[in-house]
């Protein structure tokens, strides 16, 4: 019988396997209301970022046009994903009237808020609705929930679409910083000797240059800053803390018995580092990464705010704040993006704090 051995093996296993480290940590995390609330907020932001074109936009989420179904809202993610038929039929970005005129049979599902993050909504673009207010008249109203900027562009739409950037900045730059930090720290901690000497020196040098000085210099070197280059720069400068922690963990763990056992079994250095030490070193390293996400969002915000960010039309929260600097009368340009950045940073800090408390046994002891 082919499946007999499997059955027998499962009989020999203890009735209830003890939960793994991460399952244990998660069950403790779930009991922390503030941590869960913060995590919920991050999930909410992710949802906003993913569904941004369906929340605010001027392109239909789904429409039926000349007998076919389209999803023009995807054009917000990538221009090429907007079906070419709308270009050949000369829609020029305004859908409501054009759909009616060119195919009376058509129907469309519209975004929740009919506003565009990149341009001003004009008169009668949505039948019967007047033009967006501009200059200093754009205070928050029923149509423009968070008001409009000097040029009449809706702030709510800008913020919804800017969520993608706020999240991407955190994940991409910390993904990069985490990879560099873990590799540098792991090499130094595991091999020791001159490798350690070299990696520690490099880490120290990068640490000694004030972060903003290094970032401003790098941004100035990059000729045309795009959001991706900004992320790369934040990542390339933010790995030092992670490297030092990883190094300390590797130094500690490489002397442990399970590593010796692995080595005795013939595992090579790469395998030991990746399969045996890294999983055990990951929890403490996760904490500075989470805090790093918060500070990456902060740095991107301040760069855009200083005018060193990606050029328009990239809608980042920091660039809305930048446009508010010369027009402080327009308080809504300050309050909404400012609160957005603040809440996001706070949420990541709280998540980091909670992870620290559920994964660090020393802190758990302290609470008892």
């Amino acid at each position, binding site marked *: 019988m082919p499946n007999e051995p499997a059955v027998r093996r499962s009989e020999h296993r203890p009735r209830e396997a003890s939960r793994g480290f991460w399952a244990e940590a998660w069950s403790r995390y779930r009991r922390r209301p503030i941590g869960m609330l913060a995590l919920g907020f991050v999930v909410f932001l992710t949802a906003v970022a993913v569904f941004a074109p369906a929340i605010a936009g001027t392109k239909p989420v789904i429409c039926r046009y000349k007998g076919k179904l389209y999803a023009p809202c995807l054009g917000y993610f990538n221009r090429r994903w907007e079906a070419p038929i709308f270009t050949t039929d000369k829609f020029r970005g305004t859908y409501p009237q054009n759909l009616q005129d060119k195919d009376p049979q058509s129907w469309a599902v519209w975004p929740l808020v009919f506003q565009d993050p990149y341009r001003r909504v004009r008169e009668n673009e949505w039948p019967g609705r007047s033009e967006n207010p501009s200059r200093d008249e754009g205070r928050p109203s029923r149509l423009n929930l968070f008001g409009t900027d000097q040029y009449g562009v809706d702030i709510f739409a800008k913020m919804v679409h800017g969520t993608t950037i706020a999240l991407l900045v955190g994940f991409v730059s910390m993904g990069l910083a985490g990879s560099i930090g873990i590799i540098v720290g792991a090499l130094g901690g595991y091999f020791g000797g001159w490798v350690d000497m070299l990696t520690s020196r490099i880490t120290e040098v990068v640490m*000694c240059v004030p972060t903003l000085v290094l970032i401003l*210099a790098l941004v100035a070197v990059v000729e045309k800053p795009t959001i991706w280059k900004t992320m790369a720069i934040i990542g390339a400068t933010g790995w030092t803390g992670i490297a030092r922690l990883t190094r300390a963990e590797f130094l500690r763990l490489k002397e442990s018995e399970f590593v010796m056992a692995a080595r005795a079994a013939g595992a090579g250095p790469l395998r030991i580092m990746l399969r045996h030490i890294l999983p055990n070193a990951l929890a403490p390293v996760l904490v500075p990464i989470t805090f790093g996400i918060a500070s990456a969002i902060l740095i991107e915000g301040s760069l855009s705010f200083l005018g060193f960010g990606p050029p328009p039309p990239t809608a980042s929260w920091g660039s809305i704040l930048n446009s508010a600097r010369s027009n402080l009368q327009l308080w809504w340009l300050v309050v909404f993006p400012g609160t957005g950045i603040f809440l996001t*940073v706070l949420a990541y800090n709280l998540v980091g704090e909670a992870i620290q408390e559920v994964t660090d046994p020393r802190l758990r002891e302290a609470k008892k």
Partner: protein
Amino acid sequence: MATFLLRRFLLGLITLAVITLIVYGLARSMPGNPLTVQLGESDPSRKLNPADQQRMLEIYGLDKPWPVGYLQWLSRVAQGDLGRSITRKQPVTQLIGERVGPTVLISGTALVLTWLLAIPLGLYASARGGHADERVIGIALYVLYSFPAFVAALFLQVIFAVWLQGTRWELPLFGMTDLPSDASWPARSLDIARHAILPVICQTYVSLAYSSRFIKANLEEVVRQDFIRTARAKGAGPWRVLIRHAFRNTLIPLVTLLGLSLPALVGGSVIIEQIFTWPGMGRLFFESIRERDYPTIMGLTFMFSLLTLAGQLLADVLYSLVDPRVSVD
């Protein structure tokens, strides 16, 4: 002690050389140079013709590849000369001397305020650990800690310069003083103080939140130790235990933190000074990057890195002074 200092000093020199090398390389790789950026931006017709430009580059020594330029810079620094600013036609040391005062005015006040408030707050929070008021303070400090300084600066500007405009609570939006330089000094200092309030608040609150949380965390660590139990057992009151026995033992990490805040004291904050157009060091750095003013960029970088390294060394030395158990050797 002497060998320790010597070793740290030599290592520090190497680190300093590497840092300045990197920043010099970066600065010289930025597109444009001081001549093109400064003149080309203001008026395209005033662009230098190629021959003049080449001649001026030669005068400033910018015609050679940057590694050569770096070595020249380094040898001048070794002789105690930071060079002259290209765009401001002033020696860099003089520029720094002009800007350091305003920066220390803000960051020094902020530092003193931070510690004056953070120590009582930290002590209070750990004395009342677990009570409702401690929770409220803790949450408030955490929220403050996550509040980005540039957002806070804008919020404060909106409140004090726009909403309260015309009332007696109105505060100036930016700059250091509105009065002419021949105004009497009491009026001038009052005016400068009014201008300094918002930047000082912005610099204080973040470090206040951080420092008081830091003090509390350290106190909680110390309070669990045996000598605290002994102190309680011999009948010392709760406050006496906290201040005389516990707090004195948390001074060590505090001293480290103080040493590490040295560069920020003189270096100032680029963002805060930029928002309030405060004529300090941070703003000077920002402007010098914009203008591609290599000597100023390098002079400031040199100073920042020197202070960072000095701060670390100072922290280590103070460590051994505060705690006789720690020895640097």
